[in-house]
């Protein structure tokens, strides 16, 4: 403990008085005389030693040492001063002829003035150094736990830990994904001293632009006396999370936190502590964007002993979404998906992939305000044109067969998420995309709906027929010509149609009437029945796998454009016409295929050989090959 201020001052005063007093003693003319009333050199030496002791004590600034020196001062120094003062007083009263008068009375009295000051300072030092230390109450604050109460799910937190799994992909690659369904739950608190505090914080999700609210358990400890706690306040500091070299927030932010309700003063008894549960609300909202940030939280207590603070430097990570996360998909029959069943698990890895896609897409193409449709556009553009997500013929999730190319077969949601997750360091063979899993377009379409809905971008619904709730549609090509002689152009000539394949009757050599279906050839030369497209808000189509076949705004009639790849041909801005699309042409080859499979449904009439595969002459009279163009 340092020397108390009063004692410090007394030491300084004593040292100040010592110098003149010692000098006065050294100046005495009886300094070396044996008949001097006291041994003056010894006295000088004594006071010089005392002077040194004081200086050392002052330098050490130790209250205990000062108290000891003060005690010695009272026992030896003060009596010594008093003896000399008494001696001088006696001398001052001696007559001129008194042989014991070794110094002049005036000198003795003058010296006593100096010694009197020294005596006064010394006595003050003794008094102050030995006096009991004055008691000063102090308060300390410690955060015990933090819970973000306005998070998605509220008390039953929606966000769950990543599911991490290792899959053996069919090309021999081991794919470790963090996008699997979660196997557990996060703690109720995002930050807890019981878990180790900083470095052991947990994330949560909340809608961007919503108010942060926190429930903090904190401890106020009083020392040196009672402390009255009058209230609390705080501050959230958000730092943009970095992902793949990109900031997941436009700007870092600070939000002041104020008490949700006033509290009555609470007295914390000195030497004890009280735990408080404090509800604080943001005086501003989280940034109104899709993003992610790491948080630091500083809490301040308003007390009678000052305003102690404590900071949780890693107080959680917040994932900001457009709305409440949702999304569900199930496949009870092969290649049939409905947006129902168990909701998808909302995990940090899934959210981060979606947030990254949305932000990177927005950064890549300026789409306008952060409206839901623009966010969906952004995700689509990024996944398709930057991240390299693409269809993979013959890979799909089936209820009964493992056709995913992964072993063991992942759960449906996991597979769909993996099909949207790029693997920059792992290259797939051939034309297969560099993604964790490979999938056909209708699987990608459902996956895209899950990604949108986890950010609260809804609804991914297309309502064809009575109340079906599909997140995707099958987009079929249409021929330009009619299928009856003289094969005139259809009016109006349409390029594509949703959910209804184009089929035409064909008569076999044996007279049996069969049917053929129009398909298109994709950019890899694969034969496609359709393009699976995600449908957003029942109006916008997103062909994540290949190209758009129908217009983006189906309106009352889904039959419309069929275009193919070029420069963003599948991205539609306005008004409902694909960019770079030549309505007089179709860029993808078409073909009629078909009778082979429909034999099986025609109740046993074997027609195998008259139409084994493609129709080499879809329009009689045209000198064309097996594949033909829309404009042929």
């Amino acid at each position: 403990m340092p020397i108390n201020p009063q004692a410090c001052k007394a030491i300084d005063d004593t040292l100040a008085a010592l110098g003149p007093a010692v000098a006065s003693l050294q100046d005495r003319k009886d300094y070396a005389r044996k008949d001097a009333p006291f041994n003056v050199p010894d006295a000088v030496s004594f006071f010089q030693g005392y002077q040194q002791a004081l200086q050392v004590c002052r330098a050490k600034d130790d209250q205990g040492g000062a108290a000891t020196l003060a005690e010695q001062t009272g026992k030896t120094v003060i009596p010594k001063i008093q003896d000399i003062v008494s001696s001088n007083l006696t001398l001052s009263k001696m007559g001129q002829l008194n042989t014991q008068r070794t110094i002049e009375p005036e000198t003795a009295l003058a010296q006593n003035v100096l010694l009197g000051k020294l005596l006064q300072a010394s006595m003050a030092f003794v008094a102050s150094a030995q006096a009991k230390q004055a008691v000063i109450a102090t308060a300390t604050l410690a955060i015990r736990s933090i819970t973000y109460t306005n998070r998605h799910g509220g008390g039953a937190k929606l966000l769950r830990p990543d599911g991490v799994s290792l899959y053996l992909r069919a090309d021999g690659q081991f794919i470790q994904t963090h996008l699997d369904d979660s196997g557990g739950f996060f703690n109720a608190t995002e930050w807890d001293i019981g878990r180790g505090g900083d470095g052991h914080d947990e994330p949560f999700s909340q809608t961007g632009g919503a108010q942060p609210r926190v429930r903090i358990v904190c401890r106020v400890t009083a020392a040196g006396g009672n402390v009255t706690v009058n209230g609390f306040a705080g501050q959230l500091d958000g730092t943009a999370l970095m992902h793949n070299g990109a900031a997941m927030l436009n700007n870092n932010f600070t939000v002041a936190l104020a008490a949700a309700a006033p509290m009555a003063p609470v007295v914390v008894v000195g030497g004890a502590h009280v735990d408080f549960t404090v509800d604080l609300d943001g005086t501003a909202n989280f940034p109104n964007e899709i993003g992610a940030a790491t948080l630091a939280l500083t809490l301040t207590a308003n007390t009678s002993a000052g305003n102690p603070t404590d900071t949780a430097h890693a107080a959680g990570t917040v994932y900001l979404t457009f709305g409440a996360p949702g999304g569900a998909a199930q496949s009870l029959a092969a290649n049939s998906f409905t947006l129902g069943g168990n909701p998808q698990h909302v995990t940090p890895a899934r959210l981060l992939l979606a947030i990254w896609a949305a932000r990177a897409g927005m950064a890549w193409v300026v789409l306008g305000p952060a409206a839901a449709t623009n966010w969906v556009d952004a995700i689509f553009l990024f996944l398709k044109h930057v991240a390299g997500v693409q269809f993979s013929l013959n890979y799909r999730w089936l209820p009964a067969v493992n056709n995913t190319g992964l072993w063991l077969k992942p759960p449906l949601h996991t597979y769909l998420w993996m099909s949207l997750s790029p693997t920059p360091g792992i290259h797939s063979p051939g034309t297969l995309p560099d993604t964790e899993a490979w999938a056909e377009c209708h699987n990608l379409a459902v996956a895209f709906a899950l990604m949108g809905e986890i950010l609260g971008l809804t609804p991914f619904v297309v309502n064809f027929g009575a109340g079906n709730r599909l997140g995707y549609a099958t987009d079929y090509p249409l021929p330009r010509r009619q299928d009856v002689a003289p094969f005139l152009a259809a009016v109006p000539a349409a390029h594509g149609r949703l959910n209804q394949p184009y089929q035409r009757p064909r008569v076999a050599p044996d007279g049996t009437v069969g049917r053929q279906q129009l398909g298109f050839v994709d950019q890899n030369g694969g034969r496609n029945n359709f393009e699976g497209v995600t449908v957003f808000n029942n109006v916008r189509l997103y062909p994540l796998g290949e190209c758009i076949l129908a217009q983006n705004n189906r309106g009352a009639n889904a039959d419309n454009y069929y275009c193919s790849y070029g420069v963003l041909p599948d991205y539609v801005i306005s008004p409902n016409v694909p960019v770079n699309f030549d309505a007089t042409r179709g860029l993808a080859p078409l073909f009629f295929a078909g009778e082979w499979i429909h034999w099986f449904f025609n109740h046993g009439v074997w027609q195998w050989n008259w139409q084994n595969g493609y129709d080499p002459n879809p329009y009689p009279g045209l000198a064309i090959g097996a594949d033909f163009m829309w404009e042929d």
Partner: protein
Amino acid sequence: MDTTTNPPVQPYDALGTQLRAAPGGKGALAAKPEELLAVDNHCGWTAGLLKLDETTRSSLVKSCLLYPQEAAGFDIVRGSFSARGLTIATASSRHVLCVVVPLTPNPQAEPAALAAAAAKALFDLPATAFVFKEMGCDGNVHYGVRDFSATKPIDAEWPHWGDALAWWCDGSQAAFITTKAPGGPTQEVIMPSANENRYWFTVPSKDPDTTARSA
């Protein structure tokens, strides 16, 4: 047996004949990614279509050998496994799967009935699906398909392997061939034709479509 509607060739044509035949030459283990993909596909469909226990399912890949451009020019994956004391052989091209199973001879039983009983024990389909119709015979090998006059298609709109099932039976063994079509809408046009099944894990020497259509 009604032979009046005999087709000029058997179901699955030359591809079916090749898949039912004994392996041509010495097979090779999968090594390249494309070969691994083919083996994975073959095992996935075998495991998905047949009633197998988990031990057998997980061991399928060990028996798989590759026969690139086998005999008549098809990339084929072949495998075998044991179940209930029988050795069952499998083979598949890109879109077509073949399963051959030995039978306990029963001269009194019709080939279609023998095949249906074997299929019922083998395939994971509703029992009502196994009503077979004989379409013809080649020597002592009888063949046919499901009788859709007696049973309904599993998927009336899209190709389904259960509807595309064809059978062969000579009394001592039965072979089943089907298209690897899961039912429901698929992006890929799943074709059991010979031209669409020639190349799977090898690279065609020239455009297969051109080859196919000029053939």
